């Protein structure tokens, strides 16, 4: 069966703990920018937790939303890349081929979700922090764009294993680093082509929405709206 990878984010479960952010950083060799570069807005976060404040004391309301590459079916970052480094893979991912990237940054410009990060400098790890680097993931150097890959290394590993055992992949057999760490199970990863998978069930929920779906990007990340809160005030 051919796969189409997707992710569902249940905003009613997300607590804003940012475990996903650190898990992704650890899994994907994301460099630490340091204070100076962070102040220049050059931190790299493949997944980030956005928060929106509404209202004022004593009734402020906050909403958390993890934002990551939406792996759009009609990705605006793909047609603008002059070297075909940003392209669509056979399994529905928006792939980033690091060795083709020449750093024009048109893709980051085109992306409405601001999920693409650029390596403004060669990342450095003070030894022995580099011993933690994941050998299954490339270490990107200066001048390369990067973004969430839906942990493509885990996808490949699982597919190779399933093939060696001559069987199909099972739903939940493997998952992305962010979804694996999420304690409240807000993040669910899986195959949208599998009608029985958890992610398909969530993507077809009556709470399902797409982020900036009206732009026509056809994201493969589905957000499930928060439950209603009871609007009592403190008056």
């Amino acid at each position: 069966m051919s796969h189409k990878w997707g992710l569902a984010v249940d905003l009613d479960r997300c607590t804003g703990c940012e475990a996903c952010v650190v898990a992704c950083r650890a899994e994907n060799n994301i460099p630490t920018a340091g204070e100076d570069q962070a102040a220049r807005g050059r931190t790299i976060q493949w997944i980030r937790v956005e928060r929106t404040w509404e209202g004022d004391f004593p009734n402020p309301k906050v909403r958390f939303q993890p934002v990551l590459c939406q792996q759009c079916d009609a990705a605006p970052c793909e047609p603008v890349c002059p070297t075909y480094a940003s392209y669509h893979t056979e399994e529905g991912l928006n792939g980033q081929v690091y060795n083709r990237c020449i750093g024009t940054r048109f893709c980051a410009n085109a992306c409405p979700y601001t999920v693409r990060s650029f390596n403004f400098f060669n990342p450095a790890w003070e030894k022995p922090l580099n011993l933690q680097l994941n050998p299954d993931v490339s270490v990107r150097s200066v001048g390369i764009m990067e973004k969430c890959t839906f942990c493509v290394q885990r996808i490949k590993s699982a597919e190779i294993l399933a093939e060696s055992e001559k069987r199909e992949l099972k739903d939940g057999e493997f998952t992305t680093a962010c979804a694996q760490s999420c304690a409240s199970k807000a993040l669910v990863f899986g195959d949208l082509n599998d009608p029985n998978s958890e992610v398909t069930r969530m993507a077809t929920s009556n709470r399902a929405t797409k982020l900036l779906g009206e732009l026509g990007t056809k994201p493969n990340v589905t957000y499930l709206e928060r439950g209603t809160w009871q609007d009592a005030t403190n008056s």
Partner: protein
Amino acid sequence: MERRNFLKISALTGVAATLDACHAPDKQLIRFVQEEDLVPGIATIKPSICTLCSAGCGLEVRVMQGDAEVIRNGQTGIIKMGLAKKLEGNPRSPVNQGKLCARGQAGLQVLYHPDRITHPIQRTGARGSGEFQQISWDDAIKEVSSHLSGLQTSKSMSGLSFLARPLRGQRRELIGKFLKAFGAPPAVWYEPFDEAVLRQANLLSFGHAALPTLNLGRADYVLSFGADFLGTWNSPVSQSIGYGAMRQGRAGRRAKFVQVESRMSQTGANADEWIACKPGTEGALALGIAHVILREKLAPNSAASRAGAQIAGWAAGLPKYTPQVVEKQTGISAAVITRLAHEIARSGAATAFAGGAPLAQTNGLFNALAVNALESLVDAGRETGSNSGPILSFAPDVPTSIAAKLETSQASLASLTALAKATPQMLLLYDANPIYFAPAATKIREAIAKIPYVVSFGSFIDETSAQADLILPEHAPLEQWLDGQPESGSTQAYISVAPPAVAPLHNTRPMTDVLLGLAHQLGGDFAKALPWTSFDAMLKAAYTALRTQDASMKTKTDDEFWTAVQKDGGWVGASPTAQARSAAATSKSASISASGIQSEPEFAGAAADFPFYFQPYVSQSLGDGSTANLPWMQELPDVLTTAMWSSWVEINQKTAAKLGIQQGDLVEIQSTQGSLRVPAVLSPGIAPDLIAMPTGQGHEDFGRFASKRGANPLAILALVTEGKTGSLAWAATRVKITRVGGPEQAKLVLFSGGLSGFPHEEESR
């Protein structure tokens, strides 16, 4: 050939040939023969235990072969060894069930930290000068031995002090036995945010001196008073799992969550209703709600049984806590109090609990008892069948032969101030940094300066270990045998045990083996008390007793059992046997409760001079400051303010406008004990007369990522305590604020927008 090609080829080969010899320095290091049998590129998964907070979650470590630079016999070289690449939650741990929090993920950076001390060092310059020299382990052990023998010779064994963070499990046993055999006083267990008040309250209300285990997945209504249960309080991962379930884990049922606090925490941001309550009046609010429930007979008085008996006036229906009276105390309207009472009493399965700032007041015990009484009233386990039972319960005891004993009588702060006054002859430090973690008013820094000999088992130079005479660096947690008995988070009896996941990287030794080695050398009484030569032998001896007490692992011999336990990362009891609250209200407990528990909060600093309440709060990324040296944690944006690599103070937007403070301005916060300067962040989620500051920064000395960065709120806290337990009332200090500078002086780094305070290259052109 063409000249062009000739030149190109000769240039290429010529340069390559002449400079072939010059290569990266790495290629000139020798390679040691590998000691481990690992296939490259293939991961093995090993169990371990997370030690970054007291929840005690189980870990799975992904280990893969890689090249590491090590020093063997003084020579630097490269060796292929198993390296820890990723941490995940251990699915077999009933506490975290395969999940892991943000700080837990960063545990890898403790292991591979560039500031780890790589071999024993001895002070050569003055204390605090940072001048140390490397010595061998043999010499280091001789040093410690001779000092210990010296104490024995001069019959001043009581002059030995051991200071550590609270532990549960065999490490606690080992330290206790060592000190007892030596004749020294018991260890001093110190942590800044100890939960002595909550444990004492739970003992009085429920008969268990322990942190509660919350089965939130069963709840229809959660009323939390100040507890950051999704972030930093009690067992956050376990509670987050329950939270997800209570929201969307059951078809057709979604729990309502109400958070009562003065400053919106990460947890509070998820609430359906957020209620700002005057600091220290949370107990009154709980009793106001209980009053309505009792008055309208929405639940029987007797439902609260023992917990209710702790509250004066409970049997009479709490006449002093009418909604109108409580409104004046708390600032929350009588209508809201009444409505909350109706909601919680009428919902299916409800729970109420308190943690954090409400308990860190001079009337913290009162607040806790009040909330416990409300909890008892509403959490009567109305459901039937397999899902029945209270939401709040207590983790089952492990069999008594190996149960960790937790002394609840003395709060951390009292133990530390006692140590500061006692002037011991020799101090052993294990995972303890009181110069940073204790308020300056404890004068612990001055006390340590007077101690003749200080030995630290730490892995890092920090404020306290910088004052040590000798540092015996420890293995990182992933490199050593660990065990734990989580106090909460599991409804099944659970002990975690894990062998080392990776081989040691540096010339370090675990504290446990060093103590056992010293015991061996000192002989005599020690031989009987601590007959083991290594910590894993002690663990095996302690835990194999479980095999006969619980056959859930279906093993036939002790060795088989021990292998199985190591493979799983622990032992889990046969079936959920969570401990219910004790219903019996004994007359003994009634007499403890009736007398002398302060019901009104008091604050340090007169309101006229210090108009703001000051609330330090545990940082989501830096914890209480112990993970401040991890770069991933410094760069993790605070989820509410997006600040990173910084300290900041949160101020209500309108208050800031009145004081002329703008986003990113430098402000001075002054208490009766001292002052700090930090950038201000304007927030709508905080009471107008309160300011809040995260803990974690302000280290003078904690490595290259954390040193000289920001400020430490613990430093300016007054030594106000809760009356009965002596616990530090860390939310009871008042401060005043003054604007002292603009963003360019403040150095606040925000992830989204507002790069205030940082000069950019463009600006200087």
